């Protein structure tokens, strides 16, 4: 097993501590979907291409994250409810270094 623990606060404010695999080539958006922490169709709409902001989340812990790509940066420039700690979940791959990561899902755009 190569799982790490992650704390995710869903859009209703409920906090979940979950096990995320680091050996399945999964990103944070996919982890959220696999645990159904947000309804299908409201997260990961573009499939993980950093072309929508439906997986936007706020990073609550001090973990060092992979640097933002130009695509992610540009998408967040157009998204709503963006804060300084906003990232796109689909661009954050599950690695052992992220053990203990705490994130909160941004509200759904309506």
């Amino acid at each position: 097993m190569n799982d790490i623990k992650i704390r995710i606060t869903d859009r209703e404010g409920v906090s979940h501590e979950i096990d995320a695999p680091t050996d399945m080539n999964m990103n944070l958006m996919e982890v959220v979907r696999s645990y159904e922490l947000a309804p299908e169709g409201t997260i990961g709409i573009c499939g993980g291409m950093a072309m929508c902001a439906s997986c936007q989340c706020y990073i609550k812990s001090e973990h060092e994250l992979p640097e933002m790509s130009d695509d992610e940066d540009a998408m967040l420039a157009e998204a709503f409810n963006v804060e300084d700690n906003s990232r796109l979940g689909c661009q954050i791959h599950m690695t052992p270094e992220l053990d203990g990561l705490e994130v909160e899902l941004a509200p759904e755009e309506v």
Partner: protein
Amino acid sequence: MIKTDILIIGAGPTGLFAVFEAGLLKLKCHLIDALPQAGGQCSEIYPKKPIYDIPGFPEILAGDLVANLMEQIKPFQPGFTLGERAETIEKLEDETFVVTTNNGTKHNAPIVAIAGGLGSFEPRKPKLDNLEKFEDNGLAYIIKDPEVYRNKKVLIAGGGDSALDWAIFLADVASEVTLVHRRNEFRGALDSVEKVQELKNLGKINLITPAEVVELKGDVNLKSVVVQNTATKENTRVEVDNFIPLFGLSPKLGPIGDWGLEIEKNAIKVDNTLDYQTNIPGIYAIGDVNTYPGKLKLILCGFHEATLMCQSAYQRIFPDKKYVMKYTTVGGVTGFDGSKKEAPKAVVKSID
């Protein structure tokens, strides 16, 4: 009233391929799509991205896949109602359906196949007070007729291609063009970005960055907007006749959600043991818009679903006709336009 055999809602890859399979059965199709072009997500979101899991194509750009599908279905002369959203459905006494779009275009068919993907693409709206009040009173999310903006003071918000392209276009039409973006950097084709720079230097585009519109002012019609510098939080009031936020599109299931279809997880439940029919006989759902145990939102699965749907639709339209599936290699493809494609005949000739 547009009449057809299978009315397909959604002109993405699944909907387009359904035209081909229906055509082999001599069924005519008409497609409705909210976007102004065919191809769905492939054209709208990621035309330049490669896809690696289309059988027979080790790698193909999404845009090229759509172009190929359009070529493949051309002999079957599908009709298109583009730029309109399917709004209501009504069942007539003869068991056929009438689907009406937001523009009032009516379509009549015995079979409706919903291939709506993630839903219809709607403009993303900024969160501002009084937004709805000014819609059509100076505020628009889509530019339908640029002449509306002739000699007007126009403010565009956004940093993508459409914001850049319209700012460039309207610079020659409007009396004043202001472009507001949250960042100093723009994401767009290089020549668009350079053109905006040039027009800014010429004083034809007033560029305000990094900033966003935070307030709309006016009685009935929009009179001015308040633009806030996102770095200094300083507010500036800009007199405008028109405000056009161009923040891209996001898909919404929309009115189809109110058609009495069984919905689960933002998708339409279908019978995957047979023909992808919904709980309403005669209405099918294929591709990303449907759900069933084990569902995968893949283009290749949509193709399969479209194929089985057409077989079932045929039986429904012609309950008494006997039919067996024929391979295209054997039967060829006979278009409604009179074209015929078939395997070259072998010759019987002795070799001396």
